[in-house]
Each structure stands twice: as structure tokens, then as C-alpha cells.
């Protein structure tokens, strides 16, 4: 079988092609997939107003065959859907949505419902806003976002959902701010396979330096009560290359709340300590507590790293020297920074796949050009896997096989290049992820274990 596989791969040819509208082997979904952002908030349940397959498509692909994360309390097969038929297409679906919302209130136990629309509703022009506002006026905790699939991808949908909750549920606030409290806007829930564990680590280290943290998504969030506290926070932290910036701008206008933007999600002690110092400086917190925490974390981190160094320094059979990263900008940048600066691996090819809005691309590009004091690298933006693989095939990785940080789509490519594959992003259909994190102090060590178990494990 292994032989047949290799023979088959060798027999294939891959003609060089140009960019078109086509996307082969998708790396993001559409805006209704932001139903995950609703389900990621404890106690919140999305209600979808769309065709019969939309909700299933999103959770089976984004939360199941992507790390087998599971839908949690209000995601997965729990999600109500109007399952629109010809009737809703021809006569409109507002009445059907009204009926579904009323019934959802009887059946489901949620602190907040988030209505998301699909292509059908947005094309036939259902007045979803007025249906939802009828319920809002009765005091039902419910908001809506128009997330028809043609309006943008799930990153765009995520910010539509967060802003819908802020505007329609959190509401106005003119009271005082709580010094030392921060709202965190970072990874895209569920799409990023490791978001649960990563948000836990982010909250842990921010609390470690003395902040009170509204993490907003995942098991460490307090749910809607935390969202209600958003306006009281001293500031917003956007910890990602661009996702969350829109929300932060919105909050700046709405609540006169400043924000700190840190594009690099920290992995490893160097980057994490630097990150924490920046946040502490911005917040004006006491640096003494922060430094105590940093010292403590670094001590522990470097103890483990010291033991790891025996392997890293004298493992006989060789370790990958060059790497490629294929993934959304948040993890792509974070990993590249860590691999170059703290492991000393040589960047081969970095491809960002979530189609970030044009206005953010120059800044992202700049990050790669200054990836280390002495290393500059390039980055490509591409969302069609055929072209992504074409670009990697054309990359010169030198004598040694590269290690690819990518997705399930790169499994065969890695074999073809005789390299290793670590699935770090959507879709990761051959990873089982529960609480694993690859970021911060603790996640970095887990990442090292993953990388070198993969390479050593495949050696004989």
C-alpha cells in the first residue's frame, strides 16, 4: 500500500497555472460559519435562518473534522435552523423565522440567542431585523447578524457577530472604567483548531501580570455577564494581525475605549515576556508583579528547555532545518516568529490563507520582513490550495526535507517532498484537540513536543 501510494504520487503531474476565481481545498468558510463565534460564548446558542445544510456544513467541517473539537453546549447539532424550503424562497422566510425563534425559546435554555442569516434570506430580502426586534422588545435576549455566504468569509462573519452582540445586547454605557481590566480579541474560535487551549493560556498569563481579563470566548469566559462588562474595561487588546481591529475601532467610538494592537500571538518565553511587558506598559499596571510572574514563568520554561536541549543539541538522525507555514495570518506569523527566533529554523515559505482585507496586508508583510533582527523573509497571500501547493513545490528547501506547518491539505504534499507535516490549522482532520495550546509559555513546550515527536516518530 505504501508503495502504491508513492507510485501514484510520482505519476502525478501538476501543471503550472495562474490565479482565477477558483478555490480548491478550502481554508475558510463563509460568514454564517460565525455561528461558531456565538456558540463559543458559554450559554449562547445560535439560531440559523438558512437552507437545510448550512448549519451542519459549518459544524461538521469547522468543529468536527477540524481537531474533532466538538460543538460544546450550544453548537453542533443543537443549532436551530429554519431549514428553508422552496416556500421560504418564493414567499419569504420572515414568518418561518418568527415561528422558529418562538419555539426555540420553549425548547432551548440559553442566556442569549444569536440569529444568523444565510444566502437564501439575504437574497430574498427577509426583514430579519424587524422579526428579531419584536422579540427584543419583549425583553428576549436575542440579536441578529446578516451573514449570507456571499458577503464574506467566516473571519468577516465573526466581527459581524461580535458587533451585533455589542450593539444589540451589551448596549450603551457611560459609567466609569475599571483600571486593569482588559477585553481580549484574538483567535477565531473553532476555525483555529487550538483556540480553546490558547485562549486559556492567554487569560492565564494576562492574569499572571495582574490584569482582570474578559476573554469573551471559550471555557474560561463567564459568558454573557462578561460581555455585559465589556464597556467597563480599561482597554481592548487585539492580539492578532488584523482580526478584531474592526471591533476595537467600534468599541473606541462607542465606549471611548482605547485599544492596544499586538499582531504577533506570542509563542515561547522570549516573545511571551515581551508581549506581557508591552501590555503592562500600556495598562499602567505595577511592573513589579508582572516581572515576578515573568521570572517565575521563565524559570520554569527554561528548566524544561534545558532538558530538551540535550535532544536538540545531539540527536543523531537530523532534524528539519527549513520550514514552510501555510495557514491564517495569526498562527502563521506567530509560528514563523517562534521558529525563526527561538528555535533557529530557516524560513522556506510562508503563505497566508484567510484572505485578509487589503488594507491590513502591508502591515502584515512588514512583520515578515522584520521577523528577526538578522532575518528577513517574505510572505504570500493565497487561498487556493492548488496555487499554494504549486508555490511550495517551487520552493528550494535545500538538501533536507522541510517541515510543513499546515493543514490536512498538505499531508500528501509533505509525503511528496519527503518532509514532515504538523497540522496546525483548518482543516486539521488528523488531529484530536481537547485543551492543547501551542502559545504562550506552556503552549510553546507542547508545540516542541508535537514537532519533534512528529519528526522522530517518522524516522524508523
Amino acid at each position: 500500500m505504501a508503495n502504491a501510494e508513492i507510485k501514484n504520487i510520482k505519476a502525478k503531474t501538476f501543471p503550472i497555472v495562474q490565479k482565477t476565481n477558483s478555490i480548491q481545498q478550502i481554508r475558510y468558510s463563509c460568514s454564517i460559519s460565525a455561528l461558531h463565534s456565538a456558540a463559543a460564548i458559554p450559554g449562547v446558542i445560535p439560531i440559523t435562518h438558512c437552507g437545510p445544510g448550512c448549519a451542519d456544513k459549518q459544524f461538521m467541517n469547522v468543529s468536527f473534522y477540524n481537531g474533532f473539537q466538538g460543538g460544546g453546549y450550544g453548537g453542533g447539532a443543537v443549532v436551530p435552523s429554519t431549514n428553508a424550503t422552496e416556500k421560504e424562497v418564493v414567499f419569504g422566510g420572515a414568518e418561518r423565522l418568527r415561528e422558529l425563534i418562538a419555539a426555540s425559546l420553549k425548547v432551548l435554555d440559553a442566556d442569549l440567542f444569536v440569529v444568523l442569516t444565510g444566502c437564501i434570506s439575504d437574497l430574498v430580502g427577509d426583514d430579519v431585523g424587524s422579526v428579531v426586534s419584536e422579540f427584543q422588545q419583549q425583553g428576549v435576549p436575542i440579536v441578529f447578524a446578516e451573514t449570507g455566504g456571499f458577503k464574506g468569509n467566516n473571519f468577516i462573519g465573526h466581527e459581524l457577530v461580535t458587533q451585533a452582540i455589542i450593539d444589540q445586547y451589551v448596549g450603551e454605557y457611560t459609567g466609569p472604567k475599571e483600571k486593569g481590566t482588559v477585553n481580549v480579541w484574538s483567535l477565531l474560535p473553532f476555525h483555529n483548531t487550538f483556540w480553546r487551549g490558547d485562549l486559556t493560556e492567554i487569560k492565564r498569563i494576562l492574569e499572571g501580570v495582574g490584569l482582570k481579563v474578559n476573554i469573551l470566548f471559550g471555557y474560561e469566559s463567564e459568558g454573557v455577564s462578561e460581555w455585559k462588562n465589556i464597556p467597563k474595561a480599561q482597554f481592548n487588546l487585539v492580539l492578532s494581525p488584523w482580526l478584531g481591529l474592526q471591533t476595537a475601532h467600534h468599541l473606541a467610538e462607542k465606549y471611548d475605549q482605547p485599544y492596544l494592537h499586538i499582531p504577533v500571538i506570542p509563542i515561547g518565553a522570549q516573545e511571551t515576556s515581551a508581549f506581557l511587558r508591552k501590555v503592562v506598559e500600556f495598562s499602567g499596571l505595577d511592573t513589579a508583579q508582572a516581572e515576578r510572574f515573568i521570572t517565575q514563568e521563565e524559570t520554569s520554561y527554561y528548566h524544561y528547555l534545558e532538558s530538551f536541549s540535550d535532544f536538540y543539541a545531539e540527536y543523531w538522525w537530523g532534524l528539519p532545518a527549513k520550514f514552510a507555514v501555510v495557514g491564517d495570518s495569526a498562527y502563521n506569523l506567530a509560528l514563523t516568529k517562534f521558529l525563526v527566533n527561538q528555535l533557529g529554523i530557516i524560513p522556506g515559505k510562508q503563505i497566508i490563507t484567510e484572505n485578509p482585507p487589503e488594507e491590513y496586508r502591508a502591515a502584515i508583510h512588514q512583520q515578515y520582513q522584520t521577523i528577526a533582527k538578522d532575518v528577513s523573509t517574505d510572505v504570500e497571500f493565497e487561498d487556493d490550495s492548488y496555487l499554494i501547493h504549486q508555490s511550495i513545490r517551487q520552493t528550494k528547501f535545500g538538501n533536507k526535507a522541510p517541515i510543513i506547518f499546515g493543514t490536512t491539505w498538505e499531508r500528501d504534499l509533505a509525503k511528496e517532498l519527503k518532509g514532515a507535516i504538523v497540522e496546525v490549522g483548518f482543516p486539521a482532520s488528523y488531529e484530536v484537540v481537547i485543551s492543547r495550546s501551542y502559545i504562550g509559555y506552556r503552549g510553546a513546550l507542547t508545540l516542541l513536543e508535537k514537532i519533534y515527536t512528529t519528526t522522530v516518530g517518522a524516522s524508523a
Partner: protein
Amino acid sequence: MAINLNTAVVESREQRLGTIIAWDGTASRLSKESAYARGGCGSDCGARRLCELSGPFTQGSVCSEQMVECQAGNVREAVLIQHSPIGCGAGQVIYNSIYRNGLAMRKLPVENLHLISTNLQENDMIFGGIEKLEQSVRDAWERHQPKAIFIATSCATGIIGDDVESVAKKVEEEIGIPVVPLHCEGFKSKHWSTGFDATQHGIMRQIVNKKPKKKQEDLVNVIALWGSDVFTPMLKELGLRVNYVVDLATVGELEQLSEAAATVGFCYTLASYLAAGLEQEFGVPEVKAPQPYGFAGTDAWIRELARVTHREEKAEAYIAKEHARIAPKLAELRKQLKGIKGYVATGSAYSHGLIAVLRELGVEVNGSLVFHHDPIYDSHDPRQDSLAHLVDHYGDVPSFTVSNRQQYQFYGLLQRVNPDFIIIRHNGLAPLASRLGIPAAPLGDEHHALGYQGIINLGETILEILAHKKFHQDLAAHVKLPYKKEWLDLKDPFALVKAENLLDTERA
């Protein structure tokens, strides 16, 4: 109603077969009420259709386009274009994983599937997406030189009215391979199985050899999904070869569908349309027998297959040999499974087969949930009445429910019968059972319970799964369900539906 290959669009299940997606009663009553479709009487409705429940609360179902992805998208040497915004393309993830694992299970070279999204944007909704479709079809050709290109439509392209046919025709003439539009807009059918039919419709219209040069008298079409190769050893006993379609088949294997001596399947829900169409259009006989589950079903199925392919004497020898072979193991399993209660929650005809197998094993089955019900299959032949076969040979199922994967109803259904385990295939129901402490046997390999060996396989799987109970019971003690207590306390999973029907019969 005969299959009509002259139209590009397949007729939906509900139009052709009177399919329903919500019903609650006993298996015997559903069987009796379905008899109208075979020319019998007994429908309580007094109309020539089944009574169908319809309520205000529904959870996300599955659409026809997904079934096109999982069939046409899993044909080797072909490309499937998803003419849609990017979100429909999300399905590439699951069907890639299943495709890869299916290939590995069949010992075929593992590869990623070949699906391309046209990635329609807001502007395309205004000006149409036809140019992008044409580009993507050309991309498919340029990149892979496939032997066929399928096109799946979407809700969005259905509403904006893109003329998919003319693009397909134009490019097909140019590149000289079949370019096959499959009309599968999610909103057009209430049940996803119409997507199976849409794929099979396109294959029969544009891929199958219309005038086969030769007949292969020992070739049997097996309409399957990704299941392990259990048919080859079975059919070998009769001197027959297997042509697996649609998933994992090459385009050539689809072309030769018309050359075969017979067509069979593992489940009439999946096989109905293609098998009937091959018989009607190309004279390939469909084996009209109960499905091959349990002794009664498998015996009858093998005898009918042997009769159609003129191998009767081999059949009897094989049947006798297999009965004898599995008898000791079966006796042992029956002892081990005594007093165990099971529940089957799967696709329609598949459930009929699995319940038979469970009863062969001595497992008590007091309830079953099926995602839809076809009162008849496309052949209109009573020998394929899988539900009647179940009731006649293995007795009634007191709680028999049609519910298209509505998790909120599943709680009440499980309370009715308190099973020790459930059998599932589609995702979405086992997570609830798990939170109630009930383990599930997920039959990812849909051939696992088929034939004589299948009885043993399923018995062993149940023993393994029962051990998982420890995990699920531990979990059940520590989770809160997302459903309101008021809802869970209602005894009737269809309470809302019935209340609604009293107020409004329009939605039926």
C-alpha cells in the same frame, strides 16, 4: 412513476416516492400506511400520501448538495465544481477525510479529493456567476485533465437563476469529456437523499455507456459509499465480480454500469434511483429482494442475485456453508448479549437492515429513529419493501420514528425505551446519547453489519461499545443539556409539532 432522464433536473424524493421526514408510531403501522404506494390500501389519511408531522422547531438538517459532494465529489479521476459562495465548500473537509479513509480501507492510493469552489461574491449575486463557473470548469480541466467534471449547484445559484446547463454544454463540446450539471439546491427538497438521486441522474445521463459494446455477464454493480470490500469475497462464491459505485469508483467504472449483469446495494435509500434507472434505461436487472442483513434477508438476497445471474446452485452451497460457519460464534454472542437493549438511529432503509441483525443477535430493539421514510422505492417492486420485510420476519418495532436528525426529539425517544446502546452513522445524535450515559456504535464502515459475517461483526462491536458506557456515564453525571427542563419533561417528542398542527395545518 418511471425515471425520466430527459430532464436535467432530477425529480425530488417527495415528488417521486412520497418521502416524509417526520412521523411517529410503530413500524407495523408505518408499513401498513405505506402500502398505498404499492397499490394496497390502509392509509389512515384517506389520501394517497402519508400523514406527515410538521412543527415550528427544527434543528439544522443536511442538504442535497452535501450528498452530491459525498458522491460525485468522491469519484476518482473526476472533479466536482461547487458553484456557490465559499461556505458550501466547507463540505470539502469532511468528504476529504472520509474519501481518504475510504481509499485506505479499500487499499487504493490515498489522495485529497478534487473539489473546486467557484467562490461567488456579492457582485455575482447581482450580475450572475456564469463566467466564474466557466473559468472553474476550465481550471478543473487544466489542472487535472479529469475524465469527467461534475457541477453542483447551490441555493444561491438556484435563486439567481444561473444557466449552468449552457456553460456545461459549451465547455463539454470544447474539451471532449462529460461536464455534468447536478441540480441539488438545498431548498428544493426537504430530504438530503434527493442529492443521491441528483448525482445518479447526472451519471446516467452523461457518463454511463449508452450503447455498451459488450455485456459483462459476471459483473455486478454494487451501489455503495466508502465501505470496506465485503462484497468481493461474497460475490466470488457465486463467480461474480464487483463494480463498486459511486464513491471511490473511477469514471471508467461508472461508464461500465450499463454492461453489468445485475445491480445491488447495501441500502435502498442510496441505491433506489440508480438501480431502477439502470434497469429501465439499460436493461441491467436490479436485484429485487430484501436487503442483505440477517439470515432471512441475506439468504433471500443471495438467492435472488444468483437467480438473476444464473448461478443458483452455487448460492445454496454458499448459504449452507455460511450458516454453519457462523453458528457457533453467533450462539456465543447471543449468550453474551442476552438482555441487552439497542436503539437504531440511522438512514431509513439501513435501519430496517440493522434492526434485523440486532434481533438475530438476540438484542432487544424497542425503538428506532430514521431520518426519512420512503413509502416505496423507485422500482415499485414489493420484494424491496424493506420495512415490511423487517416487520414480517423480525416483528414490530413499538417506537418507530421518522425525524430528520432532530436532536431535541431524541431525548424523549431514548426515554421511551432506555437502550443500553445506540447505533448511528450520521453525526449529531450520539453526542446527546453520550451526555445521557448511552454509548453509540458509529458504523463508519457501512458494510460492517452486512451479510452473514456482518451479524458477527455487529455483535462484537456492540460488546466493545458497551464497555464505553463507563466513559459516557461519568460524563452524564457532569453535564447540563442545552434543552429546557420543561421541554425534557414532556413525554412526547412531538408535543410541539402536534400543538402547532392544531393551530396551523398549513405547514404540513
